[in-house]
């Protein structure tokens, strides 16, 4: 399941559905709000999503990963709203019998999610300015 959440992501709840005696490997990815981006000091982030389409496209990505890598389980969630430094913005967890498939699938899911989900990020800088990432129209391609 792929969830868009306006409230903080809770790790125990996210991983609970992945418990599976057939699984030998769990690989997780966490995206955290970091204090800099491309040389600018970041103070906080806003994420905004077109929720129904983001969840539907997220489910499609998970289904692709299950089929392609023979996963036993796949769960992901993306936070929206105003996030502080260090907060968990996105979580992906996948289980498989062996670790190679789990690593490949986890990476596939986060790469596709970043490229395909209608989720936007606004950075708030220490300088007081803000920017919607990849929406600049003057400073080259996003």
């Amino acid at each position, binding site marked *: 399941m792929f969830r868009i959440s306006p409230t903080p992501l809770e790790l125990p709840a996210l991983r609970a559905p992945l418990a599976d005696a057939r699984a030998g490997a769990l690989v997780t990815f966490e995206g955290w709000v970091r204090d800099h981006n491309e040389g600018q000091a970041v103070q906080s982030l806003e*994420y*905004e*999503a*077109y929720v*129904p*389409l983001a969840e*539907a*496209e997220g489910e499609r990505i998970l289904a692709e990963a299950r089929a392609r890598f023979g996963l036993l389980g796949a769960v992901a969630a993306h936070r929206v709203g105003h996030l502080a430094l260090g907060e968990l913005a996105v979580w992906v967890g996948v289980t498989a019998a062996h670790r190679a498939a789990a690593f490949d699938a986890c990476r596939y899911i986060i790469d596709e999610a*970043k*490229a*395909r*989900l*209608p*989720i*936007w*990020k*606004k950075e708030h800088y220490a300088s007081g300015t803000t920017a*919607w*990432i*990849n*929406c600049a*129209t003057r400073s080259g391609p*996003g």
Partner: protein
Amino acid sequence: MNELTIEYFALLREQRGQANECLATTAATPAALYAELQARHGFTLPGDRVRAAINGAFAAADAPLRSGDHVVFIPPVAGG
């Protein structure tokens, strides 16, 4: 004329000053509709960097619009 509902996100929402609107328009495709809205509201994103969704699904820029459709313009996503 198509009677459409339009929803904006992120930079488009801020430049429009609101998230939703209703519109009666002769625009028959998302591309034509975005051009009309860009001219009216001064959107800085060029049309070729904005994707469209119709009724909750991604749609081609030249897909047909029908009365009652819900149209969302999707700015470039966060990526990286």
